């Protein structure tokens, strides 16, 4: 178990390093922050001074090592725009994003999983077909289209809900629905196929042949098995709690991490972009680790294989 955990941890760290390196290189190759932040018309001396003060005049590999050495000391750098620590900038945006993504996650799970189970249990009936129709619509319509559509209907035409901003919880309703819809659709589809797969297994027939009422067969025998693949998707959704709302935050001008990312990328505000990516990678990796642990808990076949592997 310990060895299993430590290899997973090392792999997780490598993943994060890879993400940070990749972001570092791409950002530095794709535009000059000095020109973007000071504007191209700024006097050459000012641009030169800006580059020197942020270390941009040194070779890329030197900047890179410098950056990693700083991270090791817990220093994620400062924003080039206002000089504040990047970490502080990102952290103060996190609550706003979570205020959208956590209710959206609850919405996804609360609607997606029951809908998928219901559809599977009523396979090929009207209820199943309707659920799958909504599901296909839900994840094929891009979130910015759905977001704008909701704004058009509920803000512009009906005037019931605000179209943007973060003044009260009412402002969060449309963004949460926009975020939740696609996820619920994906989850419904996934849960349905996991359930159908399980319902076709011989042990379900055994449970029925034993005399268990159908409801107990579903609850005690089908659901625990169908949970195994579903957990993967939910884990992925938990992993994207921090960065999953980039588009929706932009559409609804919600001051979260996603909007900060868009602005920081546009300005090549290197430290801020890298800090966000580090955060995103870290949450994703943590979620994956949790999913792996959950697998062992849900599926005894993995648990003993793991014990055998470690022993």
């Amino acid at each position, binding site marked *: 178990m310990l060895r299993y955990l430590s290899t997973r941890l090392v792999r997780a760290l490598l993943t994060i390093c890879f993400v940070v390196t990749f972001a570092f290189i791409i950002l530095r190759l794709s535009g000059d922050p000095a020109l973007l932040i000071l504007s191209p018309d700024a006097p050459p001396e000012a641009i030169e001074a800006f580059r020197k003060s942020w270390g941009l005049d040194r070779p890329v590999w030197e900047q890179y090592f410098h950056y990693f050495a700083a991270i090791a000391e817990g220093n994620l750098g400062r924003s080039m725009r206002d000089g504040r620590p990047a970490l502080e900038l990102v952290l103060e945006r996190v609550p706003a994003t979570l205020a959208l993504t956590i209710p959206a996650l609850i919405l996804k799970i609360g609607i997606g999983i029951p809908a998928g189970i219901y559809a599977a249990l009523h396979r090929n009936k009207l209820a199943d077909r309707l659920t799958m129709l909504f599901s296909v619509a839900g994840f094929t319509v891009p979130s910015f289209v759905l977001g704008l559509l909701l704004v058009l209907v509920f803000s512009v035409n009906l005037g019931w809900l605000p179209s943007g901003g973060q003044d009260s919880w009412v402002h969060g309703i449309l963004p949460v629905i926009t975020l939740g819809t696609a996820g619920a659709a994906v989850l419904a589809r996934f849960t349905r196929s996991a359930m159908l797969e399980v319902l076709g297994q011989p042990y379900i*027939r*055994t449970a029925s*042949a*034993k005399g268990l009422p159908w409801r107990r067969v579903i609850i005690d025998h089908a659901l625990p098995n169908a949970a195994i693949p579903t957990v993967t998707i939910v884990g992925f959704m938990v992993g994207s709690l921090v960065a999953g709302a980039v588009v929706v935050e932009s559409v609804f001008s919600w001051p979260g991490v996603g909007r900060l990312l868009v602005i920081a990328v546009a300005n090549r505000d290197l430290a801020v972009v890298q800090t966000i990516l580090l955060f995103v990678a870290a949450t994703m990796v943590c979620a994956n680790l949790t999913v792996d642990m959950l697998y062992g808990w849900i599926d005894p*076949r993995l648990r003993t294989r793991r014990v055998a592997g470690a022993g």
Partner: protein
Amino acid sequence: METLVSIRGLTVDFDLGHRVVRVLHGVDLTIGKGQAIGLVGESGSGKSVTWLAALGLLGPRAHVGGSVQLSGEPLLGVPAARLEAVRGRRVAMIFQDPASALNPVHRIGRQIGEALRLHRGLDGAAARAEAKRLLERVGIADARRRLDDYPHQLSGGTNQRVMIAMALAGEPDMLVADEPTTALDATIQAQILDLLRELRRDGGMSMVLISHDLGVVAENSDRIAVMYAGRIVEEAPTAELFAAPRHPYTTGLLAALPDLDGPRRRLVAIPGTVPEPARLPPGCAFAPRCPQAIAACTTGVPPLVHVATDHRAACIRVQTAMAA
């Protein structure tokens, strides 16, 4: 002998959405109390479907017709709760592949305990003690430890013993064993068959042994019914079926079986394969593979008729021979 289960004119149609296919064409079968019936035929002949249909285990896409009675009470078309009271309690069933027939995420003890609570109201320590006793009864060593194992930690043979223990939990009047040894090694196969025989002898339980292998059912059945393409084509007491088979299909199955005593001979396979349910040939379904087929075989389905007091066969040549 008192009748336990009586199946009359049982039909099963599978609704495939775009068409409906009949897989069972009116099966008649009677099982007496304490009797052991062997149900033999190639895969796809309707052996398993007969019993899954009788117990309502085929799901919503199957339309079941005819009648099934257990101790005189109907089983078809009754409310779900009635069927649930029969399954496991009056009629228990075990299946072909024991590894996948047990739930991979639950411990053995829990899966047996479930049946004990359901049918005998046992819970907690009492259920555990009884589950342990059942495991010992089916010959599993170190039963107490096995209760906490998951199916994947046990061998195929042990898993089948667990299935049998689970079936015994409800103290059923009848056990339907659907190809119980097909997925197992030959030596394990013999052990499981011995166990089933022993249980039947001790408990006076009726048994239906479903197999594609005449050899497997020979030693474990009082009567044998041979099925082909969704019909029973011959039914007789075991000894008589082996001594005087009347249907060419039965003859073919016997010719494909090695003799343990007697001279060595070449085994003869039946040419061709079982027709698909949706594409049955006209008349007798076996006619295209039958070495003795005549023109009349394709004109109509031969009925199952008595060829001796306790022996029925469905072959047009048997009929004409009887009439002559």
